[in-house]
């Protein structure tokens, strides 16, 4: 039985996120979601699996490497991944090989000496704020994911609420 623990780092910009603004603008001005969509925010998500060590301490070290505190904030969640109420979180990740995630794993293991890092996964979480009730919001979020947020030939998505 695996004893690995998963450290989830949710990272977001403290400064305005131009990419999220562009996505919001495109959805409202070009794709007809102006009457239901209130806002779009974005987070980066790193899920780091470790096979030993204190995950809380390790998380602090990983955050030093992966988060630029001059412009980003983050929270750590160990063996869980929860999101707040009030928006629909859509997690988008590559289903083809993710070169950046592999690079991060190798950097942590080989260059920085964290040999207890077993795996690294990376995703983007789009936080979609709607003016509608939850069932309609979830349906709209799926539609937005499929029409804009992913290219199904390389990305997959998951509604996290």
């Amino acid at each position: 039985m695996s004893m690995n623990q998963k450290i989830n780092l949710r990272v977001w910009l403290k400064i305005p996120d131009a990419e999220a603004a562009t996505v919001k603008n495109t959805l409202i001005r070009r794709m007809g979601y102006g009457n239901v969509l209130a806002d779009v925010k974005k987070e980066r998500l790193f899920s780091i699996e470790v096979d030993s060590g204190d995950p809380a301490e390790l998380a602090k070290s990983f955050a030093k490497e992966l988060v630029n505190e001059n412009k980003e904030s983050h929270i750590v969640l160990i063996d869980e991944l929860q999101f707040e109420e009030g928006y629909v979180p859509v997690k988008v990740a590559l289903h083809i090989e993710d070169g950046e995630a592999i690079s991060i794993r190798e950097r942590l293991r080989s260059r920085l000496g964290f040999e207890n890092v077993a795996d690294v996964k990376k995703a983007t979480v789009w936080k979609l704020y709607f003016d509608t009730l939850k069932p309609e919001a979830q349906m709209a979020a799926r539609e937005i994911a499929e029409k804009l947020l992913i290219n199904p030939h390389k990305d997959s998505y998951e509604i996290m609420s």
Partner: protein
Amino acid sequence: MKIAVLQFPGTNCEFETLVAVKAVGMDGEIFRWNRPAGELSGFDGFVIPGGFSYQDRLRAGVIASKEPVMSALKEEAGKGKPIIGICNGFQILVETGLLPGSANHNGVGSEKSCGNVEMALAQNVMISQGKIVRRGYYCDWVNLRHEAPSKRCSGSFAIERGALLKIPIAHGEGNLVTTTPGLIKKLNDEGQVVFRYCDKNGRIINEFPFNVNGSTESIAAICNEQGNVLGMMPHPERAFFAWQLPAFDPRKQRTDEPGPGRRVFESMKRYIEVNA
């Protein structure tokens, strides 16, 4: 013969592309993305040049693909007018569904023609001897072999099958991947693979440094079924004149000679002349 060179926020090759268009004897102008899209109908052909439209936000080409000008361009494509997408232009055409375009030919303007995206130009992954040796953005001069019969495609209309062209690439997302069953076979069978990356002798070697981005079957350029829409990752406008060639190429000194990229623009002109 008037060509629109489309300009989105972040496009950065529009001016040299326009030079290339005019140098082969076509008229042309830069067409900003926010002009009334209907004005596109006054042009005989279109080039979507390279660059980083919308800073490649979300993924390369996708934000531009939602602009009204692209809906108008689909209508022009349906009329058989030539469209060449170079680098970011190729990415935009893929995200719009104009390439490979199998789902688009049942009626322009219909829901179906809004485009099923059938493939992706994913992040570069350079593979050699079974190992990943490099990832991400890469720029270099590459050799291309023309795979389609001449006259099959607007952008290679006047290029013979098997011709070799040396043209530069510069991109981070040119790795053609698809989960559409049978798509690659169909592209091969129907002559829609226009260029492949190859070595200097024209041999296809499906690994880095010959296959520069990990693209399926070393595919560098494809056209739609009708042949009027071409998407290519390499930049022909950057090899239009011999003086643009790299220092190690002896043709660089022959300043009166055309560069290999000129043949793409000459093809477009010939295609329009024949199909007018």
